[in-house]
Structures are given as C-alpha cells and as structure tokens.
C-alpha cells in the first residue's frame, strides 16, 4: 500500500479517457481500459463508471516525455506508464507513455495488462515483490486473467471482497513436479540446462540450482502455442527446435529465431504426420530422431535431409521402451525416453534399456 493506506472513500469510482493512442483503434483502447477495470471490480465491491466530460476520479491520458505533471516519461521502453494513488486532483490519474507502441496482444506492450497494473495503483496498491503478481513493477506478458492471490489479498485488504462474485472458472492448476503420475510433453537440453514442457508450463533445471523454476510458456515465448509436443537441441548450431502440431520454431538461447515458424514437412516428413511426439539429437551421429506414434524417422542434420529406410518401428530398434514415447532427450551419452509417468534410460552402445525410473526423477523427486 501507499503510506496512510490511501483508498477511494466510495465504491463508485469514475473514470474518463482524455485522449487516445494512435497505435490502436479507439474501440480497442476503450475495451482494454474497461477490461482492466473489470479485473479489479470482479474481486471487490468497486463499480467503475465512465464519464465523457468533466473531471473524473481517474483521468486517463496518453502523453510523451514531460506531459503536464512534472513526472516525465523517457521515450521508447524504460518507463511505460504511471498512476497516482487515490486522492483529489491528480490522485488516481493514470498516464501512458505515448512513445511506447501499444497493442492488444503480445507483439508490443499490451495495453490491457499495463492498464490493469496502473489501475491497481490508482486504487491504492503499491508495488508487489512477487514476480507472479500483476503489481510487480517489471512488465511481462502472460495471457489470461492477470490477478495473482497477492494482488487479490492486497485490494481486498482495502475494499473487501465482491459481495456478488461472478462465477469465474479458476485457472487450471499448474502441474506439480513431484506428482508421481506426472508425465511430460517434451524435454530438451538448452545450453547446459534441461527444459521440461508440460501443459502450459515449462520447468528449467539448472545444474547449479537446487530447485527447478516453473514458468508459463506464453510468458517467455508469447508467439508459440501454449502446448509443446516435442523439442530438441542441436548444440553445434546452438539452436533448440520446438514443435507444436505441424509447425516448428527455433530458439537461440531463449530468443526466437527469425524466419520461423516453419512446417515440419519441410524436414521431409510426410503430410500425413500432423504432430511429432518426441525428438532428440544424437551428437555422435549427427542425426535427429523424430518419433510419431509407433514410428520414428532419422534426419541427417549435416545433409539437411531425411535418411532413407525410414520410418522404422520404435519397438524394433529401441526394445524395452514400448511402442510410443511422449518425450525424449540425449544427455551425457544416453538416450532418455519418457512415456506416461516412466522414464527409460537407454544405452546406445548396449542397445538396451539400462534403467527405468519415474519421469519426475529428473526433478530429484
């Protein structure tokens, strides 16, 4: 909270949009602003009424550099917006930096998300130290409902809960890393880290950190689909390839490489393949193996084409792992295959499974 726990004395708060950004159609700005207020009215007794003229509690404007409050913006990036805590005059007023590019999606700064954050200030919330909270001071994009429990606790401390809360479908629960029945969508190495994809989330396992980090796929890569089917690293090219449906993306580090997505059929897979279950790169051979249903293909990375004689049956060439895989990875000379909650460690030299563990043993569960 701000000092003295500043808040509006009434639950009826007015707002007025003084001017509009040229970056978006007027209707999109109106919608983003209204939706941003709805974020807070859903969890409090607050009602927000739009005024078209005169002075409102929350005056909203777009301005660049010095824009009338002796609290200048700084050009593109850096400061995106600011808002004043509840009070008379400038209190509650919310200013957006017109030098930013505003969008209604993830391509530029998302106006709805920034407005939701700023209205938190305009209602009396200060910054949160919780990186998952809307009131965290640093911008990050994530689709869906923006409030965390920390934000809800904060605003309800000031105004109380909504006496008539709308029926809101809660966000799907994030997968729990030590759930014994946990299965994976995809596993890959990334510059010495291991990245595990599951539903809308991924874990980063760093060899020097005791606990894996869990993050939303969309918050790191907004433009890739929220579910990943397969992934593999080619360390010689310093690229990680991510597959979802019939499309593939390339990452250099955590950055998306331009020129993607591409269709998986460009690799030489037949059009009948609509999804890759798992992929892994074997550095010794320079081959990438793609697993789909009960078959697998071998792709020669150096020649840039599929090897002849494929697809072959998984069961015939990798005895002991079953006939389908969910995810696969190459790590320290061994192949790891994941199917349901089981991980198979497969020795290429011995041509057999040498260890079977739970999939989440990768998390030291």
């Amino acid at each position, binding site marked *: 909270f701000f000092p003295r726990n500043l808040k509006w004395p009434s639950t009826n708060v007015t707002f007025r949009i003084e001017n509009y950004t040229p970056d978006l159609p007027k209707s999109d700005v109106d919608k983003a602003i209204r939706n941003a207020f709805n974020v807070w009215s859903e969890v409090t007794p607050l009602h927000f009424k739009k005024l078209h003229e005169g002075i409102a509690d929350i005056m909203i404007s777009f301005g660049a550099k010095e824009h009338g409050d002796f*609290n200048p913006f700084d050009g593109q990036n850096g400061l995106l917006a600011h808002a004043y805590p509840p009070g008379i005059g400038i209190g509650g007023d919310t200013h957006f930096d017109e030098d930013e590019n505003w969008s209604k999606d993830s391509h530029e700064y998302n106006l709805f998300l920034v407005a939701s954050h700023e209205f938190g200030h305009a209602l009396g919330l200060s910054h949160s130290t919780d990186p998952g909270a809307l009131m965290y001071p*640093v911008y990050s994009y994530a689709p869906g409902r923006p409030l965390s429990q920390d934000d809800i606790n904060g605003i309800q401390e000031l105004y109380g809960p909504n006496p008539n809360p709308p029926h809101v479908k809660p966000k799907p629960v994030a997968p729990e890393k030590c759930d014994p029945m946990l299965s994976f969508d995809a596993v890959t190495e990334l510059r010495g880290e291991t990245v595990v994809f599951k539903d809308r989330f991924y874990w980063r396992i760093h060899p020097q950190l005791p606990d894996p980090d869990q993050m939303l796929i969309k918050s790191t890569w907004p433009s890739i689909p929220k579910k990943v089917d397969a992934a593999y690293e080619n360390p010689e090219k310093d690229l990680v390839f991510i597959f979802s449906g019939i499309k593939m993306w390339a990452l250099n580090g955590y950055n998306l490489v331009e020129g993607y997505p591409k269709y998986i059929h460009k690799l030489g897979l037949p059009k009948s393949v609509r999804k890759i279950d798992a992929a892994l790169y074997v550095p010794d051979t320079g081959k990438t193996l793609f697993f789909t249903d009960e078959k697998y293909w071998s792709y020669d990375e150096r020649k840039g084409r599929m090897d002849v004689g494929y697809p072959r049956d998984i069961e015939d060439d990798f005895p002991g792992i079953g006939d389908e895989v969910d995810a696969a990875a190459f790590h320290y000379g061994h192949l790891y295959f994941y199917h349901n909650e089981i991980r198979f460690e497969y020795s290429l030299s011995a041509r057999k499974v040498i260890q079977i563990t739970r999939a989440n043993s990768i998390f030291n569960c």
Partner: protein
Amino acid sequence: APLPTEESGIETKDWLSAEKYLRRFYNLPLGLQGAGKASDTMRQKVREMQAFFRLKVTGNLDSNTLEVMSMPRCGVPDVGEYN
C-alpha cells in the same frame, strides 16, 4: 561525485543510468554529498533494490542488477513516499 574505485568494472554509462534509476524508484538523494557519502548511500539503495527484486544482495552493480534495471517497467517508485 567521483566514481568509486571499487566499482571500476562498471562502465560510466551503466553507473549513471543506475543512479538515475535509484533516484527515480528508490529515493536516492539528488545532488552532491560529503566525501565518501555518495558511495555509501548508493550502495544502500542498490541493496534495497536487490532485496525488492529478490536478487543476491551485494550492494554492487553486478550484471543481474543492471539487467533488471534495464527492463521495461512502471514509473511508480517501488518504495517510500510517492514523489
């Protein structure tokens, strides 16, 4: 104030932008201060900032700290009275 010698690994540009950041968001006082004082105050403010962002609290402008300082963010100060 002269740049502190122990921070010699930091480029002047980074130092100045960090100072600006701390003035804006952590109430780092403006203007000249007594000898040795500027560095102490700055270090204290860097510590505050590192604690807020759950970084390793060293008081030094390490690369992680500078990286967070360069991220796009809200213009409202993180601590103290609204200015």
